[in-house]
């Protein structure tokens, strides 16, 4: 008979699952966008560290950039009965049903990194992208000595990037001798490379490029060098993950990068969740001021 064998297999796999089990119910459930980007790995690690220090149960599910999986993860948190759900939305608008389900079940929701649209959450913790853009603009003006021609690589469908570019332009308004000659979209590193090359062809007198993210800036630096303009053009990026910081350290074209702090974001998310669990009031928005990294 195969039945006893089935049971044997079941017991073994059951034991394996028990071994993998941590504490459930109560505490914080976090649904994160991905675990394949250094930013989110750092964010998740910071959340885990803070939760274990404050001795609060924390569970993290990874949506793997799939909105449907994010919704299912949140539904499972609701059934499990967590106290607070932390979400970094796959999509600002599409996350709405997940947040509404949690709120209808009486669970408080926090968003990190990406805000939700069309629904109020208890608190949003994320980089102050506008302030970061202003810092990038000031740094650009500084390295160009207040005059020159600047190009921007952007990603106009993402609100956080729009805010960065707005801040960047606002800061440059104070410098009438700096002119923005081109602004084009380059989302992936490959696209950003092509866009940067095109802009440098069209405007050979460009002296500065601002990339909306690390990928865009790193691609722009490659484009600058491939056209032999490394003594003329300075590149500034945004995100400040390790690869870009190393580039700032070693590559004279990469003069600086605006640095986001996923570790602070993760810590603050957990601290806010604890406050919410204790019934304390928390601010609806908690912007985290990014830093400027210009090398060791």
């Amino acid at each position, binding site marked *: 008979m195969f039945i006893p064998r089935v*049971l044997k*297999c*079941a017991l073994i*796999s059951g034991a394996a*699952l028990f071994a993998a089990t941590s504490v459930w119910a109560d505490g914080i459930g976090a649904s994160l966008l991905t675990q394949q980007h250094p930013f989110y790995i750092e964010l998740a690690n910071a959340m885990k560290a803070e939760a274990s220090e404050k001795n609060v149960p924390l569970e993290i599910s990874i949506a793997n950039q799939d909105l449907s999986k994010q919704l*299912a993860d949140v539904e*499972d948190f609701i059934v499990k009965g967590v106290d607070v759900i932390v979400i970094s939305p796959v999509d600002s608008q599409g996350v709405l049903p997940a947040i509404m389900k949690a709120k209808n079940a009486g669970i408080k929701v926090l968003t990190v990194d990406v805000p939700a649209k069309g629904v109020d959450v208890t608190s949003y913790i994320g980089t102050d992208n506008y302030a970061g853009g202003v810092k990038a603009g000031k740094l650009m003006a500084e390295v160009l000595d207040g005059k020159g021609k600047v190009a921007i690589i952007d990603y106009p469908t993402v609100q956080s990037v729009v805010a960065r570019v707005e801040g960047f332009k606002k800061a440059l308004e104070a410098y009438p001798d700096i002119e923005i000659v081109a602004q084009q979209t380059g989302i992936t590193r490959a696209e950003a490379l092509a866009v940067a090359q095109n802009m440098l062809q069209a405007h050979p007198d460009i002296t500065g490029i601002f990339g909306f993210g690390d990928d865009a800036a790193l691609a722009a630096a490659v484009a600058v060098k491939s056209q032999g303009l490394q003594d003329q053009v300075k590149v500034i990026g945004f995100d400040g993950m390790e690869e870009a910081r190393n580039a700032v350290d070693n590559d004279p074209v990469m003069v600086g990068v605006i640095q986001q702090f996923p570790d602070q974001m993760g810590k603050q998310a957990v601290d806010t969740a604890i406050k919410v669990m204790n019934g304390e009031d928390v601010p609806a928005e908690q912007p985290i001021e990014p830093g400027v990294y210009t090398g060791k």
Partner: protein
Amino acid sequence: MTETTVYKADPMATLKTMMRQYGGIFLALVVLCVIFSLANPRFMSVANLMNILQQVAVIAIAAFGMTWVILLGEIDLSVGSIIAVAGMVGAQVIGLGWGFVPALMLTLVSGILMGALNGVLTAKLLLPSFIVTVATMSIFRGMVSLPTNGAPAMIMDPTWTAIGAKSFIGVPIIIWIVIGLFIANHILLSKTTFGRKTYLTGGNREAALYSGIKVDRMKILIFMISGLMASISGILLSSRLYSAQTNAGMSYELDAIAAAVLGGTSLSGGTGSMIGTLIGALIIGALNNGMNMLSVPYFYQLIVKGLVILLAVWLDVRSKRRKV
């Protein structure tokens, strides 16, 4: 051999043949549920069981369509892309202000047309369905992004979103739809000549041709069924998400194939049933939900899911081999 498989495919014959056919896989589902509910008592709560059914609905319905295709000895890898296109068609038609019913109709028609394209290319150009649907998977996936340039499209129609959010007599509408489609597919497969022809064609194509079955027509019709089921999945998914996502349904075809194969559908065609596929889909849903309930880290979930699929199929194949 073909004779017996065709006979076994009629699940209403006796309880005994049912146990013979689904015993192994059903037991696997029960064992899984027992393990999960021992580990977390909330797993077996009514709320969570409804939860699982809702979460697995999209896969289950696509898997019903997939079962037809696999029964015929073919495969449809474009299902995930059709799910995404269907949601986007619905969102766009609603966006035009045409209302719920036209949006629903056009979405279903789009699914049938995409399925028909797969069927015609496979049957008339004599191309392997594996290659045809790899190609159309890419074509349909590209088409999804055209209206919005890759951005998601919000759906604000109250009827459309009610499908995913509302209940009828205490049971979510999505679950009623799954039950209805299960019954419809089951009857079509096990009680009609069309169903019998499908088994015969999948079991032995030559014999089917000689007995006068229009195999080409069968193929096109069955790919149309698969497209229709996928478009219904797309409607449910977009109604659950209040939006059509351009990356919706990515790799769902693989879950649909896994559900059908877990349920005893043979990839060489001719053997399988809707009941088996439903149980297979439930196993996948119970696994995903159960591991979440147990807080198994995501990457381990993928590994465990693969292992359980292997184990369940192996047990099933083994138990059948012994009894034949």
